[in-house]
């Protein structure tokens, strides 16, 4: 199925004085996908998002949205949940949402109808005439989420959408995201939580120092690494993992230990060493590397390059 580009960046560069925040970045985000924009702190993610949002203009390169050059009216077709949340604290919940919906081009009556629908859906109906400051942090987050989606944007940018939410509310937000995607929205997800990316994203782009260091379909990326990781549960002396020729990295999670092998490293050698030392193996599984490891390898790799 051939998909159109929801957002396309072509050779985008942005400088702040001497700092090159984004360096010749090209991206293609497919329509109807969930796209993960990843990268360490200060990699240029926020600047990239701000350029897509038309908050900033690239110094070089071009950005297209839904097949058209980015214009002022494009802002009405993007929804945005910034990482730093913030609303007018002394305004009433409903008034804030009506104002923000109006700024996204919704007419007064339409905005009123949709805001009420969303407040109902996110269980905030009884808080509509309270001031924002009276709401708990989680509730404020939900209000801000409504502001991002109320105008049914074809492109939705969510920066760390789950931080500060309890599992129930996080689940509600996740369901809404998947619902919106089903309706054809494209979601750009920026987060440091790799397990969320693994569960939700179709494609990713990992940027570091303003440049793309990895991008493509998530499944394809993981496949390219092969099943080079052993997921272990064992009882006994961990000394059997002390094999620098074989093991590239070890990650202890408590109950589970993940061992990444060197290229051409044979997982069978691990098992042998364990048996030889009398370690009891309860679980031995060959898996694709977690995104977390790929992230660390890529970022650390370029950092030392």
């Amino acid at each position: 199925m051939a998909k159109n580009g929801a957002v396309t960046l072509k050779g985008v560069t942005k400088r702040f004085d001497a700092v090159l925040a984004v360096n010749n970045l090209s991206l293609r985000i497919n329509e109807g996908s969930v796209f993960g924009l990843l990268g360490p702190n200060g990699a240029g993610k926020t600047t990239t998002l701000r350029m897509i949002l038309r908050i900033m203009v690239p110094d070089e390169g071009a950005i297209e949205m839904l097949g058209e050059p980015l214009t002022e009216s494009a802002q009405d077709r993007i929804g945005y949940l910034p990482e730093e949340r913030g609303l007018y604290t002394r305004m009433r919940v409903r008034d804030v949402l009506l104002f923000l919906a109006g700024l996204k081009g919704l007419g007064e009556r339409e905005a009123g109808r949709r805001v009420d629908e969303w407040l109902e859906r996110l269980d905030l109906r009884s808080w509509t005439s309270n001031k924002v400051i009276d709401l708990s942090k989680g509730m404020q987050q939900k209000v801000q989420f409504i502001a991002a989606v109320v105008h049914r944007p074809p492109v939705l940018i969510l920066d760390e959408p789950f931080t500060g939410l309890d599992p129930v509310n996080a689940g509600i937000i996740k369901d809404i995201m998947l619902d919106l995607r089903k309706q054809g929205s494209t979601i750009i997800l920026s987060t440091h939580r790799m397990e969320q990316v693994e569960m939700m994203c179709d494609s990713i782009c990992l940027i570091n120092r303003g440049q793309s260091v990895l991008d493509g379909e998530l499944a394809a990326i993981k496949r390219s690494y092969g099943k080079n990781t052993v997921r272990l549960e064992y009882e006994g002396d961990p000394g059997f993992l002390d094999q620098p020729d074989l093991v590239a990295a070890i990650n202890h999670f408590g109950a589970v230990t993940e061992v990444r092998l060197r290229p051409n490293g044979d997982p069978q050698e691990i098992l042998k060493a364990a048996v030889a030392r009398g370690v009891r193996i309860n679980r031995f599984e060959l898996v694709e590397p977690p995104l977390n490891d790929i992230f660390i390898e890529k970022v650390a790799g370029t950092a030392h390059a």
Partner: protein
Amino acid sequence: MHKLWLVIKREYLTRVRTKGFVITTIIVPVLTVGILVLQIVTATRQAGHTLRIAVLDEAGGLGSAVARDLSGRLPSGQPEFQVVQVLENPPAGTRENVRARVLGGELDAFLVLPASLGEGKASAEFHTRNPGEVTISRELNHDVSNAVIGQRLQARGVDIRDVAQVVKGVDLKVIKVGTGGDREEQGQTIVLAIVVGMLLYTTLIIYGVATMRSVMEEKTTRVIEVLVASTRPFYLLVGKIMGVAAVGLTQYAIWVTAGALVTAYGAAVASMAHAGALPSLHLSWSMLACTMIFFLMGYLLYASLYAAVGAMVSSDQEAQQAQMPVTMLIVAAVVLFNVIIRDPNSSLSTTLSMIPFFAPILMLLRIALQTPPLWQIGLCLGILALSTAGIVFVAARIYRVGILMYGKRPSLAELVKWVKYT
């Protein structure tokens, strides 16, 4: 443009609905009226009853003359003093006796004319239970002096009435010559000019700082991030400035209406109390129009500066410091009041009133004092309009960058860079 309207509307409505707005708008005039009414009422009440007094004439021969001259009238038309008793050359102990009667409430006060009063070697004494009532003491002093002087003159064979005729002073009336007709001057031109100048000074600072705080609110709550993802920063800035201006004009309108009512009411109360007409401050329509024009231009200029300051700071403490230069400019205009009042048309006054930062206040002051040539007003407005446009442009650029910058306050060099960013 619809988005600009939304920004203005939000700014206006959220401000007008705050307690602060209601308090300043309603309480200030209510307090003013209250104080005015209280003053009038207490003034008429306090002098509301006749004081019963005794006169102790230790000099002899003065008492009845003084009693005759104590002819002051209260605003209500009642005599101020009722002389119950004149005791000439009283025997020793009379003072204690009379004092006891005052304490007992039979008398309100007693006046002592010491023996050497005629030679001017002693003071007359007024003993009273309530010295607060002696707002009349000047009058009393005058009456006693008159009686004593009359006595002395009579002793020299001169009739007091002749003397009064001879030494009667001359009144000087000052007439203001203006194109709109000549008007008797009782200091109201300068008072009006200062009132208008101070009004402009206060409102420029109040609404300028309000604009700055509003910018800071959006920045510190981070709501700005969502706003700039929805519309142009320039609309946000202009919408904010216009919204706050609308709040200011609403407040002005309420105050002018209230002021008119107070003046009418005050005049009514005053005339009922026979206090005589208050010198009225005549505010012509053209003066009102000038005030509005210069307020709006000045506000646009200063609000842009304050907004730029609000955009470049991240905390209240920083804002306190960073706003100082802007506030000092407004204060400087007030400091220069003297120069203008001394000679509104001197070349120094003319030059100062052309400097855009001072123009709104100082040119208005000049217009209120002595209407300058029309070409000067035109030139001033032209300079003001051009420089305001320039300042709005620069402020908008600083605003656009500043609202997304957190952390350290920018240096002047950094600000210049901000202005140059595309």
